[in-house]
């Protein structure tokens, strides 16, 4: 056993301690420092690997990767979901390329097990690469964020997946058939694209975590291929992390995996009765001054952020309003729904960026009982996660989805650009309640004005 294995053992321990640190914001940074030390140990140790005979390609790759990695880490916080999707693509592509290289190196001599591992690795790696690139493009707005569906979509996707699995089996029996290997590679790249076509931008919290899981599994497969145990451990950790997050997200969105992957959410029957009922009732609209009157009287305010806040870059304006309220002695908290935004924890990061203390960011289960005591609930760009229809309208696509109990607050003010329905394509019952008022306009503008009038108030 070489000294390198001890290096890897040490870095495995450091990685585990690193993730352990993430159990609390106080220990998180220290944990990540340990994890980066673990990475350094592993990489430096590997540079002395006995098979390495030339360093040009390695140094070139390290320099180029660093040159690209640093600017990618300096992007604005609103772009974190896209960056995360891109990094899944990068990780999966690396594993896929090494799989191809190993196939070329050993070719016909590959044993059944080894070929099966390479096949799975290349297939998972390729589909995760293109799938994640598609996700990043949708999040960045380069591709339309709405789900795109066509006839026989599910049937053709499932058939392609079955064909790819068949190719892996065929290759384990005939490892020398290079055309079939190419076919597997190309087919997997194609499958990744097709898989993401029917997925809408608001489904991203589920999908990005699932791709996270795939990227981890690809990594683990690469570890199996190279008999590199540290990579099996990290791949497995990453895979289970993505999987757990994905389960949490789909539960919070009222969906199961199959539904997300093949269901193309968002196709809702326009003719459903509830929709018509909401449309018949009219909403009450307010001006900024009237809203600030509500807020001036409030002792307790709960702010409910959603993707609209991120889209309008309104997180700083939200905090300005909260600061004004706090100087008046009001209690201000933020209600965070697990799937608000485009990735798990998205709202927390944006609000933390705006210097909102994390102790004011309250998870759904904890904040829900508090709404009944709140004088005003201020909804900033959240829609479906506040719709009371989820509780009682059995025919609604969001029926059963856990929601924030915004309607239980004494007064509800909804900041909204227009009456356009939310992602689920249904109208929100919340908007027509007796104690709900709408403040139409760009969230950032409205909040900035609101902060101004609050200052001039009492």
């Amino acid at each position: 056993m070489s000294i390198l294995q001890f290096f890897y053992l040490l870095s495995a321990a450091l990685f585990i301690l690193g993730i352990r640190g993430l159990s609390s914001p106080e220990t998180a940074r220290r944990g990540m420092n340990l994890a980066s030390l673990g990475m350094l140990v592993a990489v430096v140790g590997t540079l002395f690997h006995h098979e390495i005979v030339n360093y040009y390609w390695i140094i070139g790759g390290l320099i180029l990767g660093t040159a690209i990695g640093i600017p990618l880490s300096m992007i604005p916080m609103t772009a974190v979901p896209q960056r995360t999707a891109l990094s899944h693509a990068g990780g999966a592509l690396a594993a896929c390329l090494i799989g191809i290289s190993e196939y070329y190196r050993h070719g016909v001599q590959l044993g059944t097990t080894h070929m099966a591992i390479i096949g799975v690795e290349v297939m998972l790696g390729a589909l995760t690469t293109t799938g994640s690139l598609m996700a990043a493009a949708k999040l960045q707005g380069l591709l339309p964020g709405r789900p795109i569906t066509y006839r026989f979509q599910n049937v053709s996707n499932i058939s392609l997946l079955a064909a790819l699995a068949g190719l892996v089996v065929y290759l384990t029996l005939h490892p020398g058939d290079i055309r079939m290997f190419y076919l597997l590679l190309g087919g997997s790249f194609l499958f990744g694209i097709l898989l993401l076509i029917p997925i809408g931008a608001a489904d991203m919290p589920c999908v990005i975590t699932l791709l996270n899981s795939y990227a981890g599994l690809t990594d683990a497969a690469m570890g199996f291929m190279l008999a590199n145990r540290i990579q099996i451990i990290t791949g497995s950790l990453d895979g289970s992390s993505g999987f757990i997050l994905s389960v949490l997200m789909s539960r919070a969105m009222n969906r199961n995996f199959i539904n997300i992957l093949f269901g193309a959410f968002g196709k809702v029957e326009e003719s459903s009765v509830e929709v018509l009922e909401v449309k018949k009732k009219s909403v009450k609209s307010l001006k900024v001054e009237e809203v600030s009157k509500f807020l001036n009287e409030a002792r307790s305010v709960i702010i409910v952020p959603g993707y609209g806040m991120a889209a309008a870059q309104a997180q700083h304006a939200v905090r300005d309003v909260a600061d004004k309220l706090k100087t008046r002695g009001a209690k201000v908290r933020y209600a965070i729904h697990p799937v608000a935004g485009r990735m798990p924890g998205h709202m927390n990061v944006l609000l933390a960026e705006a210097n909102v203390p994390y102790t004011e960011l309250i998870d759904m289960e904890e904040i829900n009982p508090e709404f009944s005591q709140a004088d005003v609930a201020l909804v900033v760009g959240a829609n479906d996660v506040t719709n009371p229809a989820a509780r009682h309208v059995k025919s609604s696509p969001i029926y059963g989805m856990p929601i924030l109990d915004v309607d239980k607050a004494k007064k509800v003010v909804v900041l909204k650009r227009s009456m356009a329905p939310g992602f689920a394509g249904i109208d929100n019952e919340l908007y027509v309640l007796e104690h709900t008022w709408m403040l139409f306009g760009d969230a950032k503008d409205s909040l900035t004005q609101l902060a101004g009038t609050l200052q001039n108030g009492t």
Partner: protein
Amino acid sequence: MEGIPIAELYIFLLAAFLGYQLISRVPPLLHTPLMSATNAISGISLVGSIVVAGANYSTLSNVLGFLAVTCSTINVVGGFLITDRILKMFKK
């Protein structure tokens, strides 16, 4: 059943259970930095890529290894930096 890497399968299984335990303790507050952190850590594919890039199996494997080193380095460097940037913002 020859050639089945059984020890590796045990490692994989145990790490998955460990992952479940570790990740369950991470509060939703930190789910975004968790994702960027696991990305950075899974950039450990760098070590495998380094060996392939540096061993002269063939020019093709050098080039593929080089590309893989580049991709993994992007994840490692970018991942750790942005995770730290995010975590720095979380204040009481």
